[in-house]
C-alpha cells in the first residue's frame, strides 16, 4: 500500500493484508454491483484512513449511494471485498456494526414517535449503557432540546436532518457514513452541522465517508475526494490539488468538467 499518499485515501489498494486493513478504517477492493445486468458500481477500490474525511463526488447515478449502502451492509456486492477496521464485512460484520453509523435523506425515522422515543429505541438497539444521558448530551450538542417531545412528522426538514444526525451519533461511531448530510438545510444550519462534524472528528478521531452534491461542503470537510462517474472512480485527490490540476476556480467547475467529459485535468490519480 502506498504510504506516501495524502491523508485520507490510498487509491487502488492491493488486496488487503491484515496489517493494512487494521490501519485503515475502510478498505474497498474491486467492488462491483450489478442490478439485472446494469452496472451501478464498477471495480471500485479505495482506502479511508482513521481520522480522515473522504468525499464521494459525482452526479446522480454515479454510484455514491450504492457504494455507501454496500459499506453499511444493506446491499450485497456482486463482487469485491470491503474491510472495515480490518474485518471483512461479508463474514465479520457483527464485529464492527456497533462502531459505524450513518445518516441519509433517503431513510426516515418512524414519524409517529417523538424525537426522544426514536433516540431511545435506537440507543437500546446500539446497546448504550446510559441512553438517557447520551440523548441529553446530543440534545445539547445538536440543539434538539426544544423538540425532543415532538413527533418526527411535525418537524421541519432541517430539524429532521438534525435528528437524523443525532441518531447517527448515538453510538459514538468510529466510522460515519453520511449521504448528503446537509441536504435541505439552510446555509446557516448547514454550516452549523459541518462545524459539528469537524468538532466530532477532532475529538474522536472518527473516519468520515461523505457523499454530497454540495461542493463547498466537500471542499471544507474532505481531505480527499473520489470523483465518481457511471459507477467508476475516475479521479482522486485533495480538493485543492484537483482544482489546480483541472485549472479551475473551484470544485464545482472540476465536477462539471468530469461530468461532461470536458476540461484538461485528466485523470491524474485515476484508479
Amino acid at each position: 500500500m502506498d504510504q506516501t499518499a495524502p491523508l485520507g485515501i490510498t487509491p487502488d489498494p492491493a488486496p488487503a493484508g491484515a496489517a493494512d486493513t487494521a490501519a485503515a478504517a475502510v478498505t474497498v477492493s474491486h467492488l462491483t454491483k450489478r442490478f439485472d445486468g446494469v452496472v451501478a458500481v464498477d471495480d471500485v477500490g479505495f482506502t479511508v484512513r482513521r481520522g480522515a474525511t473522504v468525499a464521494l463526488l459525482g452526479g446522480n447515478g454515479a454510484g455514491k449511494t450504492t457504494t455507501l449502502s454496500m459499506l453499511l451492509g444493506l446491499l450485497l456486492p456482486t463482487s469485491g471485498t470491503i474491510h472495515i477496521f480490518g474485518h471483512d464485512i461479508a463474514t465479520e460484520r457483527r464485529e464492527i456494526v456497533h462502531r459505524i453509523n450513518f445518516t441519509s435523506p433517503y431513510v426516515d425515522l418512524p414519524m409517529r414517535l417523538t424525537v426522544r422515543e426514536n433516540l431511545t429505541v435506537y440507543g437500546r438497539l446500539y446497546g448504550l449503557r446510559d441512553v438517557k444521558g447520551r440523548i441529553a448530551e446530543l440534545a445539547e450538542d445538536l440543539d434538539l432540546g426544544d423538540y425532543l417531545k415532538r413527533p418526527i412528522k411535525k418537524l421541519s426538514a432541517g430539524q429532521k436532518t438534525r435528528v437524523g444526525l443525532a441518531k447517527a451519533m448515538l453510538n459514538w461511531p468510529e466510522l460515519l457514513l453520511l449521504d448528503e448530510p446537509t441536504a435541505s438545510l439552510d446555509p446557516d444550519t448547514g454550516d452549523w452541522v459541518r462545524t459539528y462534524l469537524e468538532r466530532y472528528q477532532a475529538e474522536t478521531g472518527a473516519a468520515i465517508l461523505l457523499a454530497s452534491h454540495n461542493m463547498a461542503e466537500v471542499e471544507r470537510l474532505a481531505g480527499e475526494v473520489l470523483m465518481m462517474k457511471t459507477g467508476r472512480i475516475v479521479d482522486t485527490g485533495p480538493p485543492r490539488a484537483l482544482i489546480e490540476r483541472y485549472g479551475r476556480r473551484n470544485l464545482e467547475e472540476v465536477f462539471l468538467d468530469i461530468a461532461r467529459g470536458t476540461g484538461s485535468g485528466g485523470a491524474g490519480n485515476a484508479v
Partner: protein
Amino acid sequence: MRSDPIIDRPRPSAFSLRRIGALVLRYVYILRGSWPRIVELAYWPLVQLVIWGFLSNFLREQSSWVAQAAGVLVSAVLLWDVFFRGQIGFSVSFMEEMYSRNLASLFVTPLRPVEFVAALISISLLRVMVGALPAALLAIPMFDVSIFDLGLPLFAFFANLMVMSWALGLFTISLLLRAGLGAENFAWFIIFLLAPVACVYYPVTTLPDWLQWIAWSMPMVYVFEGMRHVLFEGTFRADLFFGACALNLVYFGAGTLTFLWSFRVARDKGQLLQIGE
C-alpha cells in the same frame, strides 16, 4: 460529545433480549401515543363476539348439536380471533417499518434478522392480549360462556394457534419484502383464504373427502377439532395436540427459512433502502 466515546466496546451478542425489547418498546410507544389504535385492537373481537354470541343463543334453541355444548361457537370465534389477530399483529408491525422507511436504519444497527422476528412475535402476542382478552372476559357475563373453562387445553390450543399465525406471518412478510407494499392486502386476505378449510365452526368431516386432506395439513384444524372434543366429550385428544405441534414445527421452520432467504434477496437487490411508501 463529552462522554467517553470509543472505549470498551465488546462486540454485540449474537442474540440480545435488549434489542428485541427496543423494538417492542417502539411498538408500545406507537400504541401509547394513539388511543384509537388501542380501541381498534379490541373493537373487532368484541363485535365478532356479540354477533356470534347472539347467534349461538338462537341456535342453541334450534340445534341439538349446538345445544350439546354451550359455547362451542363462541369458543371457536374467540380462538379463531387469536389466530387472525396473531397473524395480522405480526404482519402489520412489519408493515409499520415499511411505511416509515425504517428498515434500513434498523438493519444498520446490531439488530439481527432473527431478533427482528422475535420482536414481531412479542408484539403480535401483545396485540392478541390487548385485542382478544376483553372479548373473552365479556363473554362470561354476556353469554354465560367462559373460554377459560377449557382449562389447561386452552393453553395448548392458544400456543398452537399463535405459532401457526407467526408462521403465516413469516410467509406474508417474506412476500412483502419481495414485492413491496403492493402486496399489502395479502396480509389481510390470506387468512380468509384458509378460513373455509380451517373448520372453525364445523367438524372436518363436513368437508368433501379431497378437501379433508388439505384441511388435515393445517395445524388449526387439529386445534378446532381438539376444542370440540373437549367441549362435547370432555376429553383432551393428545394425538390432535401433537399433530398440531408437529405441523407447526414444519410451517414455522419453513417460514423462518423463507424469511431469511427473502431478506438476503432484499439485501442483494437493495430493497431495504427502497422499500416504503
